[in-house]
């Protein structure tokens, strides 16, 4: 079977996987996920101005994560330019709308 042939070199495949961009992105996303609540806890302890700043930081990090999921997991980095631009615009509008609603409502 072809499947068994492909199984022949698991080590090289593992190395290729570790070195690949997507794995690095995954590690970054995991670290950001753990960093995000730390900011949240900071926000609970901080004064009102800092709460707002930390809130914006948390939302900004969230949208950075959304963008990485789109570009690297969904492969939009390799998508045709109009499609990539549509996604980039989505992230930008999302950031503007969420931070504006968070700060000024």
């Amino acid at each position: 079977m072809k499947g068994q042939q492909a199984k022949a070199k698991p080590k090289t495949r593992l190395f290729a996987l570790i070195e690949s961009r997507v794995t690095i992105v995954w590690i970054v996303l995991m670290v950001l996920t753990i960093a995000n609540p730390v900011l949240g806890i900071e926000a609970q302890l901080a004064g009102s101005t800092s709460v707002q700043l930390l809130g914006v930081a948390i939302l900004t990090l969230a949208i950075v994560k959304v963008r990485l999921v789109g570009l690297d997991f969904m492969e939009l980095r390799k998508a045709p330019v109009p499609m990539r631009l549509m996604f980039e615009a989505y992230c930008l509008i999302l950031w503007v709308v969420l931070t504006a609603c968070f700060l000024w409502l």
Partner: protein
Amino acid sequence: MGMMTESRTPAQALKIPGEAGVWVFLFGDMVIFVVFFVAYLVDRAAAPGLFAQSSHELGLAVGVANTLILLSSSLLVVVGLGAVRRGAVPVATGAFRGAMACGVLFVVLKAFEYTQIASGATGTDLNPFFSWYFILTGVHLMHVLIGLGVLGLMVSRAQQSSDVTGKRLMVIESGACFWHLVDLLWMLIFPLLYLVA
């Protein structure tokens, strides 16, 4: 070995991941959630104290764990899709099944959180924050359940043959994008409910 398939599709060639029609749905879903988020933030502005206090009642650990679980499931889907393209069927089905296991774990933790809230100090007195919590996480949970079905479909399509091209590859790519959407939406729901409320 991978080089053979690489030469057919040069790395520089730009292509839509999955079917274009699926992307209309994915983008539409992403926009609908922005409307949800704005409505949530409008309600939060009306009662900031209540939202902050109620949000603190959510267990941060479960929320963080679920985020890490979804991110890992997404990585498994990426690995699985790469394996499909190389014709490595066992790796692909294994990775997709691993992603399904992550999805099931997410549902279990969510169910645990729901029962905690239902039986907790908040009781049956459903305030606006918890209404929003159930709306946002409930709609997302529906996506997770549909996603589990989609992952199952991807396993069966990947099993059919090691030469996955054309329509069958499209189905698997589209399914992968749907699962990543489940992940993407949670990246927004988690901080909005658990962190900045």
